[in-house]
Structure formats: structure tokens, C-alpha cells
């Protein structure tokens, strides 16, 4: 059996071909294990961590990973964690496939590659084989797996959304480019993608001016990174939203719309109404003003159950109390919304600690 440090070294080598995950090294994987489990050694044998017991952490025998189709990162990490924990991994790919996951599987050397098995169904027999089921998906998928995994350990990562806050103290010149990147990469398909940037009044830019500068940055980003072609449903959603807001903008000075010359590349909508607006995705972002954090709490009340990340510029303006009352599970700088660190608690949960079972051997009393 390969030791955990060696497993981490091999996995880090494979993951270097996946820059969308950020820089993952052998040390960062070992650091994750250290952070969540106390020591990388606990996966290979009994270790005295507490002074009065020797403990060992055992991963699940078999994990069923149900991968979603929007972005690859959660699936890539889920498989990586399963391999670190020495599990056998059943992988159900989304119906439209996921090329990056297949690339990852193809790049794995033995014995990792034989620890992965692609399954085409998630019927009761497959679910019965798994000790743990990990699911990433939309509401319908989550509801389905909630039912069919009844009585089994299941980690269900349902639909989430994110937004950004530009505090009045923000002075960084690159803020527009940073915000445009957060709103554009992966065509806004991830749960970490912002739907709205809330801009605090009395900052260096008025919220309107911010929207205009963000639009220029979105345009620049699209020039260098053109969006992938949209389906009829996706482009239809963008066009419908745009035309409804064009109509509002023509009749209401509290609304402004900035849009790409090409019909569906990117859209920035400024609205004085501060209530949270859900984007139709595909680089469609709202900019709204706010005065204080309590205003923001009220404006985002409807989406609190679905909140993932709040990007903040500058992050130092966020107080501990703000973080608690805004109710997100992750706060990060604007520009880094799509790149959580490896140690990120996805939806507020640990990555490895949720999966292991501990074995304790207590020491003989003197």
C-alpha cells in the first residue's frame, strides 16, 4: 500500500494538469490532511495525537461520486479526496459528460486508476455498493438522492449562489478587472459565481459609475476570453432579461443597462432597487447600491438559504459581526471568488473529516 505522503505526491503531479484548481502541491494536500485530521500519518497507522489514545482514521470502502455538469472543480476535488482516503470510487458522470473529469481519470497512474470505476446508472444496486454517496447537483438531483440514499451516509451539495460587496473603502485600481473575472469565468456556471455586486454609497465610485467601469472590464475580458456558444434556452434567457431591462431602463432613470455588441456575450445591469436579483447566468451581472450591512441583510433575505460565497473588496472592511449576520459560509477577496483554497469548507463542511471513521486505542492506565 502506498503511503499517504506518496499518494499526495502522485496526485499533486496529476493535478498540476488542472490549473483551474489553482496550485495544488504535495505539501498543500498534506497540509489539508493535517488541518482536518491532525496528521497525515493517521491514514496509514495508529498515531498518538491526544496523549491518552492512539488513533487511526479510516476512509470509506467505496464512495459513489455523482458529478454535476456545470463546472469540473467540485468533482475533481471529490475524486482526489476519495483517492487520498484510499477508497474505491464509483463515478457517475452527468448526462452531457464532463471532459475534465475524464481527462483526470485518464491521467491517473496505477494503482489509482483501478480505484476508479465509471458507472452509467445510480440504481439501487450501485447505491448499495457505496458506503458514502457524494452528490453535486441541482435541487431536483439533490431531492432524488435524498430519497434514494435514505439510511446511508450521503453528502449532498445542492444549488448555491454568490454575490460581491464593494465597500466604500475600496481603492484598488484593479477592482473592475477582478470583479469582471469573478463574473465571467466558467460563464458564471458555478455556485461561486456572483449574481450581484453591491456597491456601497459614498465610495470613490458611485454604484452607477462602478457599473459602467465594470461593463468596460467585462468587454475587455470577453475580448480575451470569448464565451462558449450558448444553448437556445440560455441565450433566450439572456435576451429576455436584457429586453425586459432595456424597457425598464428606457422608462426609469433608476435603471441602466450595459451590454456587449454581440447579442449574448455579457450584460451589466445597474438597478437602484437593492433587492437581490438572480442572474440568468452566462456573464449577466447586476450592480446595486447599499448603504449599510443591515440594508444588505434585508436585501438578500430571500436568498440566504442558498448563499455560498460573498466576495468583499476590501476584505478587511468586513467585520466578524458582518460575516455572521450576512450568513454566507465563505468570504474572500473580489477576484478570488472562483478560486477557493484547498482547505475551503465547501458549503461549510470539511472535505475529509466528514468521510473518515476514527478508531481509538486507549492507553493502559498507569
Amino acid at each position: 500500500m502506498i503511503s499517504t505522503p506518496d499518494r499526495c505526491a502522485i496526485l499533486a503531479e496529476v493535478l498540476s494538469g488542472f490549473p483551474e484548481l489553482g496550485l495544488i502541491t504535495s505539501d498543500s494536500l498534506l497540509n489539508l490532511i493535517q488541518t482536518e485530521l491532525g496528521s497525515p500519518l493517521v491514514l496509514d497507522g495508529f498515531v498518538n495525537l491526544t496523549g491518552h489514545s492512539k488513533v487511526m482514521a479510516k476512509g470509506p470502502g467505496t464512495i459513489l461520486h455523482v458529478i454535476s455538469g456545470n463546472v469540473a472543480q467540485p468533482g475533481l476535488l471529490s475524486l482526489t479526496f476519495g483517492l487520498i482516503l484510499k477508497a474505491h470510487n464509483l463515478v457517475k458522470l452527468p448526462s452531457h459528460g464532463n471532459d475534465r473529469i475524464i481527462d483526470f481519470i485518464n491521467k491517473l497512474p496505477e494503482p489509482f486508476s483501478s480505484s476508479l470505476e465509471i458507472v452509467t446508472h445510480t440504481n439501487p444496486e450501485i447505491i448499495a455498493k457505496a458506503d458514502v454517496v457524494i452528490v453535486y447537483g441541482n435541487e431536483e438531483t439533490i431531492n432524488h438522492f435524498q430519497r434514494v440514499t435514505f439510511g446511508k451516509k450521503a453528502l449532498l451539495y445542492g444549488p448555491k449562489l454568490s454575490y460581491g460587496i464593494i465597500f466604500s473603502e475600496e481603492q484598488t485600481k484593479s477592482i473592475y478587472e477582478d470583479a469582471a473575472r469573478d463574473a465571467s469565468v466558467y460563464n458564471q456556471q458555478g455556485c461561486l459565481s456572483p449574481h450581484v455586486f453591491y456597491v456601497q454609497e459614498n465610495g470613490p465610485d458611485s454604484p452607477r459609475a462602478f457599473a459602467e467601469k465594470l461593463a468596460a472590464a467585462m468587454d475587455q475580458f470577453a475580448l480575451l476570453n470569448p464565451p462558449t456558444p450558448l444553448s437556445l434556452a440560455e441565450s433566450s434567457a439572456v435576451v429576455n432579461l436584457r429586453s425586459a431591462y432595456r424597457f425598464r431602463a428606457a422608462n426609469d432613470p433608476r435603471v441602466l443597462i450595459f451590454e456587449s455588441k454581440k447579442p449574448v456575450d455579457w450584460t451589466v445591469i445597474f438597478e437602484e432597487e437593492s433587492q437581490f436579483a438572480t442572474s440568468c447566468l452566462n456573464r449577466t451581472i447586476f450592480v446595486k447600491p447599499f448603504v449599510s450591512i443591515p440594508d444588505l441583510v434585508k436585501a438578500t433575505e430571500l436568498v440566504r438559504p442558498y448563499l455560498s460565497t460573498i466576495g468583499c473588496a476590501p476584505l478587511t472592511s468586513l467585520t466578524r459581526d458582518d460575516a455572521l449576520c450576512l450568513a454566507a459560509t465563505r468570504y474572500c477577496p473580489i477576484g478570488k471568488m472562483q478560486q477557493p483554497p484547498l482547505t475551503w469548507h465547501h458549503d461549510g463542511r470539511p472535505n475529509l473529516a466528514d468521510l473518515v471513521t476514527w478508531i481509538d486505542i486507549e492507553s493502559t492506565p498507569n
Partner: protein
Amino acid sequence: MSNPLDARIVAAIQDDNLSVGGFAGLALEIFFYQFEFNLPYRRYCESLGATPLTVKFWEDIPAVPQQAFKDFDLRCFPPELVFKEFHTSGTTNASDPKPGIRQCGVHFLDTLELYEVSLLEGWHRTFERGLFQGAWPLLKSPETFILLVPPVSDAPHSSLSHMMHVVSNYFAPKGSRAFWKEGQLEFQRIVDALHMACDFNDPVFIIGTAFTFVHLIDELHRRGEKIVLPEGSFILETGGYKGRSRELTKAELYSALTTTFGVPDNHLFNEYGMTELGVQFYACGAKGLHTVPPWARVQLMNPSTGKEVANGETGLVRVCDLSNRGSVLSIQTEDAAVRQGAGFQLLGRVSASSRGCSIAADDLLKMQRGQS
């Protein structure tokens, strides 16, 4: 008739030989009128650079998104001249309810004349002189007419109820049979009426929304009953589920109607219309094409290019309807359809639900509905 344009619009609707030029000229005149009197629409047109000086072809008349009927009062007359209001029942997206913005679209009319002329002319064209002539004799006998839509007294702002009220008054002035009581379908009375039609071998013409038919099919299934209607019976469904029953595809619904009632596919019709429009489009059978009457045009737009799609391709339905004089005549819907020659095959609303753990506007609407 209050508006000088109306007499010419009525004449155009009733003109079997309305020319291409006649349609285009009248469409532009109506646009000029609406540009002058419908202020929110005028502002929208101006923001797009479309004015009577720049719009030379009917195809260039700016189409209004359905959402605008929620956000604004789109009418060419003052509020004191509102004669009738039709309210939508959630055709458009409402994932982000905003203070001061109503949750349904409202179509204001200063007269019902254009609406009713368009409606009845559509029925004459479709059922008397058009493709579906076999149904015409049934319309002349009130006993055959079975309405599964709420009466106007129950739903005063429903364009569908008003439509059926006009149709039944016209075809069955002695009274058609409605099967609603206290806001509910009266299943037992419907079943009794259908059995009686079978006993006397009298064909019937049943009209209802898709979800009403699903309720009826499910109820009969629950009772273990099938009612094979007399030969020559017809069913007209007006589409639409809006979460009020389980949803079937058109092919599934038509198959279930044939199985449950013994009515063949070529005696099953769909009516495609919307609250914001005066014109309706009809199709026969599960795969039938919707036909477009001469006083309307249907363009199918590619949202990625903003241009009309070619024959055989899918686009979003945009309607230009001369009978919509009092509001706006060109409307961009959120429904997809395939262009097939002069007609179109309706696919219905396309939903941009996300494919994974992200949330798009459509998803949030569904999730919030699921919670309420």
C-alpha cells in the same frame, strides 16, 4: 367605433385577400399610432433608435418583451377609457418580485371589438373554411359544446374565459354547458354528460386547458373508467400547465386523450394564444403545425444573432398582430418553435435551468415555489 383605425383593422381581418402590402402598410400605421400614444413603448422605441422616421418595414417595429406588461401600463389611451383588463397567470418570469411591480401582466383594452372580430374570424377560418372543417357542424349545435374553462363570472380577468364566453355565445346562443361550480371542475357532471353523449351517439366538442384535461384523465383513470366518445367528436386544448397538474409533453397528452376518449389524433386541436395578444393560432394533432392568419405574422428569432431563423430551425416566437391596436402590436414571447414553411411547430417555453450546483433565475423561481 371609437378609433378611426379600427374600421380599417376590422376590414383587414375580414379580408380574405389581405395583401402583403396591405398588412405592412396597416402595421406601420398602427406602429406610428402606438409610438404617439403609448408613452412607455415610445420611450423604449426611442432608446433603440426606432421612430416613425427610421422604421420603414413592419419587421423593424420593436417587439415588446412579455415582462413589460407586468412592469408598465402599455396602453394608447388614458386609464378612464379602460374597458377591459386581461391578466396573465404567470406566463412570464417572476423570480425576483420587486416592490411596486405587479406579479401579473395586464393587457388593457379600450374596446373588445377588435379582439372579438379577430377571435371569431379565426374560428371561421379554422373550423368553417380551414383545415379542420370536420368540426364545424358540431359548433352549430349547443348540446355538443362542453366547456372545461371557468366562466367569466369566476374569472373576470381571464382572456381564456372571455374567449370561450364569446365563442359559446356566438355558436351556442341558447347556452353552452359549463362545468364549474365554486371554482372547481364538476367531474361527475362532465362524466355524466359524456356518458349521455355516448348513449345517444352524439359527437361532442370539448374545450379546456391542458391541465384540466390531465385532471380529467387522471380522475377517470382513478375510477378505472374510459369513455369512448362517439365518432366525430373533437377536443380543443389551449396548452398551459403552470404547475396546476403533472406536466405531459404534447405527444403524451394527445396519446392519453386518444386512449381515454377514443378521439383520434386528427380530431385533437391546440389553440396557441396569449393574454397580451388578440390573435390565436391553431394546430391539429400532436405533430400539427400552427397556422398564421393573414392579419398576423410570426417571426422566429435566433436569440444568439437577433435574426430570423431559416426554415426547419428553432427560434423564439415573435408575433405582429394587427388586432392589438390599443397596446402594442409586436410582442416577443419566451416560447420556442420550429419554422416550417408558412406555419410553425410550437415547442413551448424554453427554461434555462442550470446544469449543476449553480442557480439560474428559473431555478430560484421553482425552488421558491417548492417551498411555498
